[in-house]
């Protein structure tokens, strides 16, 4: 805001009717009037643009596939839902209820019978491989047929808990302590997010496999090898889900933590609260919306997990998405769409419940300065304090879970059967220099990824902010809109891909033999933005909700349009959330695979994950090398994104 702003930058001059009698004449006045009109309606225009983008890139493609579930030869039917809901394979015990919903007393008796058969007993469990017995409580429940949906939800719930358990300590360390490399580590927490599932699977095998890194290390001291993965495939799947999602939880939580007002903590302390009490009573309530948002996203993601479960867990841990993939590849779209709709209904139901909670949590925090960070290791003696020891222990765990798979991938890219080699990178170089135009060139993939990432950020941030602004403080109808706006996260990626293919790539038939097709760069960026903006909304909304509404009203009374008030007042105050959301948007774009590969068909708009997939033949080396490039480029850009973003936050 400078004092010598030129007049024409203040379009409301004309709006208030002052000083239009300019000697430059009517033309200028008209332009100014148009500019003024645009500025006054900027927010509305942005909302319309967002709605249009969502309609073309999301609702139409998804509707095309979903319609398959309910339209059979031109007439609407729910038969396919009845089929799924009465099949115990899909819904387990619930099938009996769906088959005969009115036999209430039978159902209640069944539930009661199950409950009374639960028993809890003390027992001893032998830790496999080490031979130490530890006491354990065994909860003995009579077997309950979960069905595909039940099991999918069960593993998602476990994964959510694991992600919280791994992510929250990271958030605490990053938010509360200062140490060398803190910012960089915070930046790098995004890395797991962009990694194609196949590389995560290979990385986990390379870390936890019998011949993997950990067993090699244990071998040095004469232990192992232990079959970490086969001991409990479900546990490994859950850890892999945590690998993806704990960083997400950590990031949103840190963003909220940095918005906690130190004064509220100080007030509590001055009123006699201990550190712990002040945390529980004052800080935690301010973090809870962010933590729950992270948990919700994690649940939805892991509810729709696909490559990881099958790759690490095997077919006995199949989820709904596995079946959707099968149906789509067999072109049985009716069943695929039916399953996908049920998935979406469950995800959106949870989202709605969460949003009701979130909107009830307004006005908790003023924006302010976060509590100062304390040094992690102020001196050598502090290392052995219980708190510090716990942090060190967590650090080691994080090293194994997060750094292990990533490092193993990098290691895999520079080795072959005879040891160290650079020939996988030589392949990339050779492909870049000698490759034909129809082949996938590494540098183009890198450049495309970065450009799309940047473009996505530029599109997704306004989209996400607009949705936040429109839905915040709009009561129940706002919650409904907000829930629908979360649709990109709640739709099966496979189904979304098919929708894009049938709707946009093949084109939508219009009268007169015309066909509307949307492919290539613009479509990819739009699809990425659609996938990414919910992250902006979810990080921005809670903080926006916490702002005093009088701030915007003051600005408007002073002459600022709604859009201007947003820009001048609200956005600077929720900058940390916007930066966090922007980082997610960038990461989503870099890591996005399923829609990119469909929209890039027949063009050279491929990205790094697409290149990884395309290089993956019977040899793994080139794909691992490309995967390492993906990691390196992402890491470098995130350090930059967070540094640049950090400036806005101040």
């Amino acid at each position, binding site marked *: 805001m400078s004092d010598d702003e030129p007049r024409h930058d203040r379009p409301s001059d004309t709006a208030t009717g002052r000083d239009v009698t300019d000697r430059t004449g009517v033309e200028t006045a008209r332009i100014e009037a148009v500019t003024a009109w645009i500025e006054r309606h900027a927010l509305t225009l942005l909302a319309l643009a967002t709605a249009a983008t969502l309609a073309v890139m999301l609702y139409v493609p998804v509707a095309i596939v979903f319609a398959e579930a309910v339209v059979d030869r031109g007439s609407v039917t729910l038969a396919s839902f009845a089929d799924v809901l009465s099949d115990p394979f899909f819904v387990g015990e619930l099938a009996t209820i769906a088959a005969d919903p009115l036999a209430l007393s039978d159902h209640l008796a069944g539930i009661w019978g199950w409950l009374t058969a639960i028993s809890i007993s003390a027992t001893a469990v032998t830790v496999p491989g080490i031979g130490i017995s530890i006491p354990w409580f065994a909860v003995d429940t009579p077997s309950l047929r979960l069905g595909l949906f039940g099991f999918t939800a069960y593993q998602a719930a476990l994964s959510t808990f694991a992600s919280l358990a791994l992510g929250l300590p990271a958030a605490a360390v990053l938010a509360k302590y200062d140490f060398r490399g803190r910012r960089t580590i915070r930046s790098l927490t995004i890395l797991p997010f962009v990694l194609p599932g196949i590389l995560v699977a290979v990385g986990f095998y390379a870390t936890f496999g019998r011949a993997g890194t950990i067993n090699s290390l244990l071998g040095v001291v004469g232990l192992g090898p232990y079959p970490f993965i086969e001991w409990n495939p479900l546990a490994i799947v859950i850890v892999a889900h945590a690998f993806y999602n704990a960083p997400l939880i950590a990031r949103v939580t840190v963003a909220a933590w940095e918005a906690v007002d130190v004064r509220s903590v100080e007030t509590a302390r001055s009123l006699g609260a201990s550190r712990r009490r002040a945390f529980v009573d004052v800080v935690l309530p301010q973090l809870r919306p962010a933590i729950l948002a992270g948990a919700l996203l994690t649940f939805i993601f892991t509810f729709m997990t696909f490559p990881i479960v099958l790759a690490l867990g095997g077919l006995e841990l199949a989820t709904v998405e596995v079946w959707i993939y099968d149906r789509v590849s067999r072109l049985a779209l009716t069943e695929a769409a039916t399953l996908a709709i049920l998935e979406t209904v469950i995800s959106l139901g949870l989202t709605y419940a969460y949003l009701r909670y979130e909107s009830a949590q307004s006005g908790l925090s003023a924006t302010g300065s976060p509590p100062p960070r304390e040094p992690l290791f102020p001196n050598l003696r502090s290392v052995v304090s219980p708190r510090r020891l716990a942090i060190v222990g967590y650090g080691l765990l994080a090293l194994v879970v997060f750094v292990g798979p990533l490092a193993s991938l990098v290691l895999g890219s520079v080795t072959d059967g005879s040891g160290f080699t650079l020939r996988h990178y030589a392949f990339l170089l050779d492909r870049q220099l000698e490759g034909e135009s129809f082949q996938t060139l590494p540098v183009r993939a890198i450049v495309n990824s970065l450009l799309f990432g940047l473009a996505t950020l530029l599109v997704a941030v306004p989209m996400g902010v607009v949705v936040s602004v429109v839905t915040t403080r*709009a009561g129940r109808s706002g919650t409904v809109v907000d829930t629908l706006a979360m649709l990109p996260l709640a739709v099966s990626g496979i189904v979304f891909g098919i929708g894009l293919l049938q709707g946009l790539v093949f084109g939508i038939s219009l009268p007169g033999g015309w066909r509307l097709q949307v492919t290539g760069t613009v479509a990819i960026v739009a699809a990425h933005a659609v996938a990414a903006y919910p992250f902006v909304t979810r990080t921005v909304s809670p903080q926006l909700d916490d702002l*005093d509404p009088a701030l915007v009203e003051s600005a408007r*009374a*002073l002459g600022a349009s709604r859009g201007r008030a947003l820009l*001048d007042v609200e956005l600077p105050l929720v900058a940390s959330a916007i930066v966090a959301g922007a980082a997610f948007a960038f990461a989503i774009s870099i890591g996005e695979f399923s829609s990119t590969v469909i929209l890039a068909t027949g063009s050279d708009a491929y990205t790094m994950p697409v290149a990884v997939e395309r290089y993956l033949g019977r040899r793994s080396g080139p794909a691992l090398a490309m995967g390492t490039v993906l990691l390196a480029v992402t890491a470098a850009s995130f350090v930059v994104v967070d540094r640049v973003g950090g400036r806005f936050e101040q």
Partner: protein
Amino acid sequence: MTDLRLDGVSKRYGGGGGTSPDAADEPGTLALRDVDLTIRDGEFFTLVGPSGCGKTTTLRTIAGFEDPTNGRVSFDGDDVTGVAPERRDVGVVFQSYALFPHMTVAENVGYGLQFRDPPTGTSRDDRIEHLLDLVDLAGMGERDPAQLSGGQQQRVALARALAPEPSLLLLDEPMSALDARLRESLRRQVKRIQTQLDITTVYVTHDQSEALAISDRLAVMNAGRVEQVGSPREIYREPATRFVAEFVGDNNVFEGTVDETTDERSRVTVDGRTFFLPALPDTADRVTFCVRPDALSRAAEHNRFTVAVETTEFLGERVRCNGRWNGRLIVLHVDDPIDGRSADGDLTVGFEPSAAHVVDVE
């Protein structure tokens, strides 16, 4: 500057239309019922009432933050209903100050000058300086709002609202977050500035004594309705409704049956005790009247009754006694000390018929 009129303004909440601190956000809540108000140019006008009465909603409707469900708002005869707040040329000060925490004091004050030019011949900086001067905060421009005390912050908010020379100043409970002493001094400052600038001002408060002290005229609101509009004197002395009588100042309200009316006076029975009031209309059967605590005197010859005093409050020259008569709460003021003894126990007082103000007859 500006005449302000509200004609038949109603506001119903529900269907997710918006929120107001005044009204619960349940569907179909009627926050304003057919409010008519005329506020004159240069007037200091106060909306007063208990919380939830619709006073803040009225102010927000004037500012343009809420659109009325029915009725119209006009400034100087121009209908502004539906006009966006930024195009209404109003200045607003909120209870929460709502200073922009990421801007300095000067930036806060100067914010509105981006959209509306400072008065001809003044630069933006001059204007900011002038306003900080006006609110006794000269030299504080470079500070962050968080470094200021509550009273200082509220003065910044006032300076910010006044900077673009709004034609209307709206103050929404601006003092209620401050302590009593600060509140009084700030109130005087606000009044001084208002007089000096001669700006039409609408002031919202739940504090009737503040409303009486500061206003040229005020409107007492209850349950979304305007109960009475008038000068502080009129409102205090001649409350139009029982609600106003009870809400504004301490008051003792009595209901009775009219036994007999002559040319000079009426005889009224309240709880079996006979009182004499100035002559009521012939048709009156029942009457509601009130007597201010100051008018209840131990020396009065008429209308005497005995109050069982329960608590006393020392006010300086006088003592306020709270007691009961026939189960009714009675408030009265007596000189201190009362014949050398405390005011505990029974106290017999009376009032002159002319001191009774009739609120309602049936």
